């Protein structure tokens, strides 16, 4: 098994211990921790899992490294950062929780992590929701919740000029 990470259609920013990858095709952005970043950089279609494990640094045995590489490939596959035909295996081969239970703190440092977001459109990022749907076009965002993790507007204006959806009034 010699996996290959995607190289095309991505904008990549190298940080000291992380990697930010912007997928231009899907408008998703990913933050890879050190282990996931090492596997992503190293997976060029010529390296085996053992070879990729060797990139993760000293202080871990072979089985630990290969397990971490498999898990990283699973996460990269979920994030669609591997070539379409690259074998990745499911991320659940070795869940983070069970890995932490089985191994000590040292191996926990090897655990790969990938955080992802869907990048907003300009309108979504800049939107200011309206409170009154009277006269607004259907679909106009309205009645936002008090949260910065929710979508820009929780509800939308309906054709009958009411604001619908899962309303939120404190």
């Amino acid at each position, binding site marked *: 098994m010699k996996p290959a990470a995607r190289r095309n259609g991505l904008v990549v920013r190298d940080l000291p211990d992380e990697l*930010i990858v912007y997928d231009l095709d899907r408008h998703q952005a990913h933050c890879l921790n050190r282990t996931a970043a090492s596997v992503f950089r190293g997976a060029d279609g010529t390296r085996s899992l053992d070879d990729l494990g060797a990139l993760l640094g000293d202080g871990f045995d072979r089985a630990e490294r290969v397990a971490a590489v498999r898990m990283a490939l699973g996460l990269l596959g979920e994030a669609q950062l591997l070539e379409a035909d690259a074998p990745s295996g499911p991320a659940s081969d070795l869940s983070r929780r069970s890995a932490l239970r089985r191994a000590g703190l040292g191996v926990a440092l090897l655990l790969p*992590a990938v955080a992802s977001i869907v990048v907003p459109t*300009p309108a979504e*990022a800049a939107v200011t929701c309206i409170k009154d749907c009277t006269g607004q076009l259907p679909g106009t965002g309205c009645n936002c919740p*008090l949260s*910065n*993790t929710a979508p820009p507007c929780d509800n939308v204006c309906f054709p009958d000029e009411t*604001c619908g959806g899962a309303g939120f009034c404190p």
Partner: protein
Amino acid sequence: MGILPSMMPRLRHGWASSDRIDRWAWRAGTCFDAYGVRVGVRFNDPALLERLGPHLPPGWQPCASSEVDQIFSVWVSPRGARARTVGRVYAGGQRRALAKDLEQAFEVLESEIRQTVAAAAPGRTFVHAGVVGWHGRAILVPGRSRSGKTTLVAELVKSGAVYYSDEFAVLDRRGRVHPFAKSLSIREGGCARHEIVRRRRAEDFGGFCGVRPLPVALVVLASYRPGAEWQPVTLTRGQAMLEMLAHTVPARLRPEASLLALERAVARATVLQGERGEASAVAARLLEQVRQPAGTSRVGAGAKGMR
């Protein structure tokens, strides 16, 4: 700022045309520049031009040329007409709103102009965020509408911080923040459906507006929950960039430049994420955080994990 010139705008060569509505009887227009974006506005009623000034983006400048990057159009029903819709607002050829009164029409127009400037400003990356200055460095509060940005910014200004924006952090290529000091939009009322939005100046809170660009010292990703204790976790630089990218207006249009500006903005900043209670209880702690030398803070000692 200057006096708005009276001239009918036309799109720069090569920009999308709105020719369907170009044929309507526009009777007054003007052109201005904001953050390097040339904007035109036209009306079918010349009297409306005089009402436009307060709705322009901060820092606008009159344009000598009538060639613009985007045209906004406001068509109002003739006085005395018994129309349910008083005003129609267009961005290019796209209708954006059917307004029941002029106030609503100008409100939509103002928001549309700001969004266009935020998306298209050359050399600037607009992040939806409140901003204040403190001891020569900036505190950013990114967040969606109604996430409590303005409330926290107002509280920080009351506590002595310098007002920069309650809507956009304008980042340059070096990651410094420039002011976008429009009036603060303070929401009053218990429910989104019944609230009133009041415009307040920084001076109303005993503060003033900043002018010069500042490096970022602190980014606060706070969601409001009544009664919550502010116990934030500290994000890594990558996590911080990802969180801020979710509020970055031109992220899809210019991902490389956006990421570079964000990377430089957070390079020397502490980035905290957590739930907050009342803004008054958090503001002093945030200001204290910035006053301390980097790396000595006890706030946000936790670390955030990733999937």
